[in-house]
């Protein structure tokens, strides 16, 4: 079995997820800190992305990542993860389970907001971690129909079928245009990446 405790974080890159999980399994808190940190570094961002998709809220996605990784590490320490080599699958199933609970909590919050009419929060958070100064010229440089398709897909959250109907295109053509537009955006953003 690979021993990963006591190594610097940089060297942990080479270890498989399962090796890290086995290093944590059955340990007391503090005994496998490096391996636990590395597991957190690898999986917390994936759980957060899962949360963004299913909870549709950045704060809730952050909460999900924290809660899931806490549960995963505790279950590993307690020796309750049957197959550490399947740790990715365990993290995903834990994410699904915790997200259901968070959705219920959010539904309760929504009902309370409706009851007490709390209004919008005072502090607004910049939702994008991507520099708008970079993305604006790249979106502007797209062909008109591609720009419209991206706005309708990712902002107005319309389906390819709905977009096609509005623009006189087939759903397949919308998807093809969307992929082409995204490829152009990536290339453009890459050329504008700060040195």
């Amino acid at each position, binding site marked *: 079995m690979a021993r990963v405790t006591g190594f610097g974080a940089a060297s942990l*890159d*080479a*270890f*498989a*997820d399962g090796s890290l999980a086995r290093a944590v399994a059955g340990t007391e808190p503090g005994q496998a800190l490096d391996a636990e940190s590395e597991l957190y570094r*690898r*999986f917390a*961002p*994936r759980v957060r*992305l*899962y949360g*963004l*998709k299913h909870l549709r809220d950045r704060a809730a996605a952050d909460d999900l990542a924290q809660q899931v990784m806490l549960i995963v590490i505790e279950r590993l320490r307690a020796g309750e993860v049957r197959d550490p080599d399947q740790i*990715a*699958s365990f*993290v*995903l199933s834990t994410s699904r389970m915790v997200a259901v609970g968070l959705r219920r909590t959010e539904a309760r919050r929504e009902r309370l907001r409706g009851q007490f009419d709390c209004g919008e929060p005072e502090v607004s958070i*910049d*939702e*994008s*971690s*991507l520099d*708008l100064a970079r*993305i*604006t010229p790249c*979106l*502007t440089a797209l*062909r*008109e*129909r591609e*720009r*419209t398709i*991206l*706005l*309708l*897909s*990712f*902002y*107005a*959250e*319309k*389906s*390819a079928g*709905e977009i096609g*109907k*509005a*623009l*006189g*295109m087939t*759903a397949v053509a919308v*998807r093809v245009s*969307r*992929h082409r537009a*995204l*490829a152009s*955006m*990536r290339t453009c*953003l890459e050329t504008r990446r700060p040195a």
Partner: protein
Amino acid sequence: MTDIRPGCLTFGELADYWTVDVPPQEVERIEAHVFECARCARLLAEAEQLRSGIGAMAKGGRFQAFVTDGLLNQLARDGVRVRSYALDPGETITCSAWADDEVIVTRLRGDFTGVSAIDAEMRLETGEEWGRTTDVPVREGATELVLALPASMVRSVPAASTMRITLRAASGPPGPQQSDIIAVYVFNHEGAHERP
């Protein structure tokens, strides 16, 4: 190490994950792969950044595009301040942008029968071209095109100037002289106003 796995996903597939088009079984397939694969997890994060960046741009009224009512409804839900004008072909209107406007929407009405795409040109009376866009899709039966502009861009137009928007069918070869003019709309721009 989980950097690359068999069956890695394309950026397009991962971007689709963030749309409403992706069916539940595809969502599960993508998630199962991404949790096993660091490379695809990074690409999924990149696609999400792009999605949220586009959303932030739209919410901030920082885009110029021909849009649909679906997008305008989303702007309204997000509390974006939109000022709207509607013009028939050949019509002249007096317009202005207020300091707290975020998006200016212009409904350009016309007869688009038999036209699948148009080119649009915005030109000041001085002859200076202020904007041009090509290949704007037109759905069959459309009676208007909806142009959205950042209000900040409109506020930058000199006061008391005249702006002309010309729509041409884009079916012909490139170049304004070869295309048919569908409609011309004239805006007498009063300038930017401050609220009292």
